[in-house]
């Protein structure tokens, strides 16, 4: 256990390195999530032939800041019969859990500062993928606690819908990744990325797993076409009906952080992470190579975020029974078949 051993031996250099990286990651993640809100509104406007927000700064570039200030200044309302502590705890858990996955993401090749390698990954756990699943499965708590503590039937129903959906799709999500783990024969995200150098991206070997994982990621983030937790016509606002001010903003903002996390995980597992073909033959110094690799990863992430938004504004919502049927009766059998097929091909062709 790298983290515990670090503290056990009081390796201050390593600890300061990691703290700096944590600070940078925190700022980058929240910044990207903030600008995702603007991107979403701009993309929606483009798809619906509108202009979108353009008053705050050039091209509406200051809009996220304006929105943030507005949500902080708004009056904070806690319903009279709500459970006060849990009501506040709900959005906190949601946001914290959304940010926790960044600990295991390999953002690029190592940087060299004064000849010493500086890893761009907080912790290379050898159970990386399982860690991300543990975090995903904890995301349910924020929603459940928030929805229940509001003491409102619509909130509770929204929370139950959201969490059943998340629990159901976690299974298919986990199963769809087993072929990837089999091919890389490791659970560590760094090893899986390294196995995809050049054109060996997993999306070409495992297209079915990619489609299933991508759909499950949409469902886990509660985004259209699976945003049944907040169907306005049935449940008002879903689990955050009673929330106002910054606590509502945390729930909405956490969703964008989750989108960013999902896009990152998809880029790393299926789109080759920080690799692009011919990267090793550019003849760059290690530091420039590292910077290029970071930019590559972020280009892939931004593309995936765009795809998330593209889907949201073009596909209508599923019905609840269709959603459950898709998750349990179509995806899970397909995943199991995919695992069997991968195992068969691997044993037949690698010997």
């Amino acid at each position, binding site marked *: 256990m790298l983290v515990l051993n670090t503290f056990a031996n009081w390796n201050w250099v390593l600890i300061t390195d990691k703290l700096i990286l944590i600070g940078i990651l925190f700022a980058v993640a929240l910044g990207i999530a903030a600008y995702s809100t603007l991107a979403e509104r701009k993309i929606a406007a483009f798809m619906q032939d509108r202009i979108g927000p353009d008053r705050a700064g050039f091209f509406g570039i200051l809009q996220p800041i304006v929105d943030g200030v507005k949500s902080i200044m708004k009056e904070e309302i806690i319903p009279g019969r709500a459970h006060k502590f*849990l009501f506040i705890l709900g959005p906190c858990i949601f946001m914290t859990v959304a940010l926790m996955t960044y600990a295991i993401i390999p953002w690029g090749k190592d940087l060299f500062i004064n000849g010493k390698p500086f890893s761009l990954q907080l912790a290379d756990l050898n159970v990386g993928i399982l860690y991300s699943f543990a975090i995903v499965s904890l995301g349910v708590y924020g929603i459940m606690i928030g929805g229940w503590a509001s003491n409102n039937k619509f909130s509770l129903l929204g929370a139950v819908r959201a969490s059943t959906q998340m629990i159901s799709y976690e299974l298919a999500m986990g199963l769809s990744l087993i072929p990837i783990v089999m091919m890389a024969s490791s*659970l560590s995200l760094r090893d899986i990325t390294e196995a995809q150098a050049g054109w060996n991206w997993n999306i070409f070997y495992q297209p079915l797993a990619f489609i299933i994982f991508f759909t499950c990621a949409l469902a886990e983030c509660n985004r259209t076409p699976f945003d049944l937790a907040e169907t306005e016509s049935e449940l008002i606002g879903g689990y955050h009906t009673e929330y106002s001010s910054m606590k509502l903003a945390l729930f909405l903002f956490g969703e964008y952080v989750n989108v960013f996390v999902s896009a990152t995980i998809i880029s790393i597992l299926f789109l080759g992470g920080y690799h692009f073909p011919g990267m090793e033959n550019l003849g760059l110094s290690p530091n420039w190579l590292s910077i290029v690799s970071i930019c590559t990863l972020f280009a892939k992430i931004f593309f995936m975020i765009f795809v998330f938004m593209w889907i949201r504004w073009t596909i209508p919502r599923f019905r609840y029974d269709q959603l459950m049927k898709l998750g349990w009766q179509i995806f899970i059998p397909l995943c199991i078949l995919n695992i069997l097929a991968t195992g068969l091909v691997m044993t037949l062709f690698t010997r």
Partner: protein
Amino acid sequence: MREYIFYFLAFVSIISALMVVFSKNPIHSVLYLVICFFSIAGHYLILNAEFLAVVHVIIYAGAIMVLFLFVIMLLNLNKESEPHKPAIIKFASVISGSLLVLVLVAALLKSENLNLPASTHPSMHSIGMVKDLGKSLFTDYLLPFEISSVLFLSAMVGVVLISKKEA
């Protein structure tokens, strides 16, 4: 340093386990139990059992406790609606609890002279890692592993059978 982490985790797990029993609101009990599971996962991490820790969080905190939370929230159990238990049930639970304590204490006293290898022993360092765990599961412990998977399968079939409407 390792000792301090251990004492902190032990403190958290004991306090939260006590709060599970003593808190009046069932929702609070469930949330304290989740905290307890997290601190136990921390203990596994100290013992170099990363896989066990993560799986513990996924299964207990992520799946089972969410279902508990579901049931309790939907049943809307409260202090007021909780039925008063008759004296005989309280008496029986005290007896069975004390018996369990007796067995646990006896087992702990017995295990003192077992001479277990310390967790700092080099051969114990990598046993919790995924690769070694998988290897020993599929070689040394293959039969128990397969038998338990058959058990799970039959449990799943049983659940499907029970939850079907027309039996």
